[in-house]
């Protein structure tokens, strides 16, 4: 997955749909209004007008977040190569946040406890929600292992 800087329009809808995709209801309104998930997006749009760009996980071959994780929550799936966080194991030490060279892991809270928020490429969906909902095709998903 990669972002095309020339087409990112700074709408932040990727963040909105990221939150919804990682909610219980999978519904934008419910995720924001009922589940209290506002701000729990895993990719983040950086802006310096006129430009903007979503910063997202690269799913590195040798992920430093996984190496640094003290609780074994952060793992890299050996089959798909997707780096993701077992949120129930995360203790919120933020080693991953500090060690990610791309700034792609965010410290956050979900269900009342601290968790590292990071992209899992919407493992259970056909296509990451951010890619599917980008109104200007600024996000491209090609699959693969990296």
């Amino acid at each position: 997955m990669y972002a095309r800087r020339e087409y990112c329009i700074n709408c932040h809808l990727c963040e909105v749909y990221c939150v919804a995709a990682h909610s219980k209801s999978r519904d934008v309104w419910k995720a924001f209004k009922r589940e209290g998930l506002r701000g729990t997006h895993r990719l983040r749009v950086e802006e310096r007008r006129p430009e903007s760009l979503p910063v997202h996980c690269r799913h590195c071959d040798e992920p430093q977040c996984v190496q640094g994780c003290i609780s074994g929550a952060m793992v890299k799936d050996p089959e798909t190569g997707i780096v993701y966080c077992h949120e129930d194991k995360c203790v919120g030490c933020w080693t991953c946040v500090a060690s990610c060279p791309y700034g792609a892991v965010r410290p956050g809270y979900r269900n009342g406890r601290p968790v590292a928020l990071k992209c899992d490429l919407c493992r259970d969906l056909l296509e990451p929600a951010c890619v599917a909902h980008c109104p200007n095709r600024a996000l491209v998903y090609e699959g693969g292992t990296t």
Partner: protein
Amino acid sequence: MSAIRMNPPEFRVVRDEEKCIKCLVCVRQCGFEAQQYDPEEDRVYSLDENCVACQRCVCLCPTRALRIERNPVPYKLNAHWTPEHIHNINKQAATGGVLLTGMGNDKPYPAYFDRLLLNASQVTNPSIDPLREPMELRTYLGSRPDYLGGEKDRYFGPTPLVPIETPIMFTAISYGAISHQAFEALARAAKAYGTLFNTGEGGLPEDLYEYADHAIVQVASGRFGVHSEYLNAARVIEIKIGQGAKPGIGGHLPGEKITASIAATRMIPEGTDALSPAPHHDIYSIEDLRQLILTLKEATRYTKPVSVKIAAVHNVAAIASGIARAGADIIAIDGFRGGTGAAPLMIRDHVGIPIELAIAAVDQRLREEGIRNRVSLVAAGGFRSSADVVKAIALGADAVYIGTAALVALGCHLCQKCYTGKCSWGIATQDPYKTRRLNPEIGAERLYNLLHGWSHEIKEMLGGMGINSIESLRGNRLHLRGVGLTEAELKLLGVKHAGEGM
């Protein structure tokens, strides 16, 4: 001192607070600062007086929490002094300036397309199913000889005919009036569908020369971006005399819009106003026009047909006859509904004539004079659907230009604020924060789809009439009938009233 704001907001933003999740997409996308966020109060709110109803926020809101409404103006009812007149007077009383606007004439003048109906075959002649039988939409633009071998008799050499796969082309919209992204989308779609786009008067950007084979390049009164390579790369050269939205008026692209790239394309210094004079200062007669036509043909070694574009005005038939005799291969006529990036409101709304009457008059005149074969007739100005296209061709056009319809396909919602350069849809703006909103890849696909859809509909309509080629429909006014038209209108259009037989 702050003056009283005499005009109430034209629109109001209605936000459903229950639905709003405060994602702020509306605030980030509004090109007119109508949507605001106050972080101190964590409050999303609107400045209604800034809203132009472009619908950008409405279309992007993920929870559909937004609606734009017309703001009711509770003036005492007055059929003569409408709110529009009052508001315009207030604007001018405050500024002393000319009222500007964008897009085409929006006044309720009659639309003759809506008073014309098409024929269909029943029993005595078979209709054709375009999905099962061949249906030809390809047409050729250019000058045909008077008789076989007749081109030798002409003073100037023949120019080749240009095939287009559908009788729909993209009209002249310059780079500068619209963003590079929008311009590129038009070029890509024209190439993909096998039709032509028109550069407008602002030249062809260096990086889009790969599409030049599908370009009609304009030579306008400002001569922006005209050079030998530009002329020779094109498929067709068009001399722009006039524009339907502002007949008799020149153009003015303000210096703020002249970015480095636009300046390079137009061959003018960055940041200077691009002024197009009202007339070509070397064309004061048909003879002068002939000189320019022949100059352009000489410059391109008679390999490009030359088109002359005029606005539909009162004496259009006689002018068109002169243009045909001056050696033009194509005459493009732009009706009073034609769009623009900026025009004085009074000109746009009160000058020119409907394209339907102009096509009929020109086609009739050229036929009567026996010179209809010398030119292709391209109609422009307010084509909203494939039915409009079919009716124009039946009235005598060879092909049509679409402009507004193409921009709508790119996202335009006709807010008519092109002249401000703030377009929220990234079309009529050069602001790099906004131009990126139009991904040319998506734009080209949507334009291609539009051409495909309209072309399919045209095939169906032709099939219904029992015709299998668009060229058989051209000027075939027996396939048209008028409804609710006066004797004079029917006579001018050359059609019978509905109910009359063959």
